[in-house]
């Protein structure tokens, strides 16, 4: 009986594994590696790579600079409505990307709620790289904030209290104690947010359109090339698989990195206070 159960478990796991990995392997097996590399040098692929990198980095900078203090507040302070705020921040996490796209249009599109005010200032967001950055930040930031809240909440409160009773300012406590101690979790959240942002498709195509070298990110290029230059689409897909694997490896490696640096938090902490 026990044996049969074990066989069933292994069988189910094997099927699940094969189902999940076979399509990814197929991407690499369908076209020879030489062709893959050559296709990545095509103009479409290079343009998309540049757009993805640029918008991704800018979006990520916003996610980190706004998300980190938000996560610190929510992870270390108790206040009325905190649970509600945390839940609200997680909504985009479970939102279908197409909904994110139409929502961004409803808010920032020309006829959107704020669109008119922006137009009056001579700013038009849709179809620009700003729109790509916004779409990416919208879908990616909850991943970082969520992980960040957990990371700051896990920091030993007595250490923060000790720092304060020793007369260190709250800002300095944040920089020199909380941030280094939460670095592992924040790093993992940052990597997940980056991965989600790189894969953004639905919100981008609706809100930013698709224009090579301007708003066409890697996933949009895959879609556009699917019926034009199939091998370019496959090559970009294979590249994104490699990036995803790299992100995953980084996330898995981070916790050990934290325990390594946490004994001397001050050394890796940025100097000065805000």
């Amino acid at each position, binding site marked *: 009986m026990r044996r049969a159960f074990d066989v069933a478990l292994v069988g189910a796991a094997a099927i699940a594994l094969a189902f999940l990995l076979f399509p990814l392997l197929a991407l690499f097996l369908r076209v020879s590696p030489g062709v893959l590399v050559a296709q990545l040098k095509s103009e479409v692929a290079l343009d998309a790579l540049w757009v993805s990198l640029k918008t991704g980095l800018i979006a990520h900078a916003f996610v980190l600079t706004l998300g980190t203090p938000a996560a610190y507040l929510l992870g270390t302070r108790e206040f009325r409505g905190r649970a509600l705020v945390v839940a609200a921040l997680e909504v985009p996490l479970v939102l279908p990307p197409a909904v994110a796209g139409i929502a961004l249009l409803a808010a920032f599109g*020309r006829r959107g709620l704020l669109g008119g005010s922006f137009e009056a200032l001579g700013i038009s967001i849709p*179809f620009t790289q700003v729109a790509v950055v916004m779409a990416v930040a919208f879908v990616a930031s909850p991943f970082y904030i969520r992980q960040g809240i957990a990371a700051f909440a896990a920091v030993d409160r007595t250490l923060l209290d000790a720092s304060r009773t020793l007369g260190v300012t709250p800002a300095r406590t944040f920089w020199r104690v909380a941030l280094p101690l939460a670095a592992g979790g924040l790093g993992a959240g940052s990597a997940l947010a980056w991965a989600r942002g790189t894969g953004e498709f639905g919100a981008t195509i609706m809100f930013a*359109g*698709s224009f090579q070298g301007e*708003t066409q990110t890697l996933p949009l290029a895959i879609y556009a090339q699917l019926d034009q230059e199939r091998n370019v689409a496959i090559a970009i897909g294979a590249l994104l698989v490699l990036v995803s694997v790299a992100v995953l490896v980084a996330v898995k490696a981070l916790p050990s990195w934290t325990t390594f640096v946490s004994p001397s938090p001050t050394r890796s902490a940025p100097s000065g206070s805000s």
Partner: protein
Amino acid sequence: MRVVVGLAVLALVACGGGGDHDALTIYAAASLTEVFRQLEPGARFNFAGSDELAAQLREGAKADLYAAASPKYPAELYADGLIERPVVFATNRLVLIVPTENAAGIDSVDDLHRNGVKLVLGAEGVPIGDYTRTVLENLGRSDVLEQVVSDEDDVKGVVGKVALGEADAGFVYATDVKPVADDVRAIELPAEAQAVVRYPIAVLAEADHRDEADRFLERLVGQEGRHALRDAGFGVP
């Protein structure tokens, strides 16, 4: 294990035999959506860019009929033996559309080159995109390509972005205007600059519903089809 196999079988049966699997399956260019739905309400449809549909058929998608907005992809599929000889059953023309409020003040193609005009086109390689570039070339106005802010993957993408008012103008088929008549205004293009837009249809070489496909073809090129096509703004050969 048995549970998994059982589940898999169940899933296959559920998805495979979903009642309408036995219906005529038609892959058609997005611009044919309204007419085809009206002509054959019981069929299974896949409306998308003609190029995308061709790619899906090459990947082994099961269909009985393929109707495209350009002879290019049917010709390629025919050459490879995937479909039978295509027949042209309709023609179309391009129009310039602008949002009803027309904030950019566009009244003709000659207004498009102005700074700040946001123009949305079909991508190159997508029929509407290629036709648009032909028309602009015929008009000697390829310079307006510099105003393009998005290359859409099918004509519905162009219609949607203009109808939403996000784009100032776009080129679409004349037949795309009717469903969004409240949101856009169509501007006719000079006849001599028009691209020749032909719609071929063909039965798939491996069609499962050959008889129904033939009957649909007969109706399409007969009185009923010609009437419906004209009503929707198509030309008939």
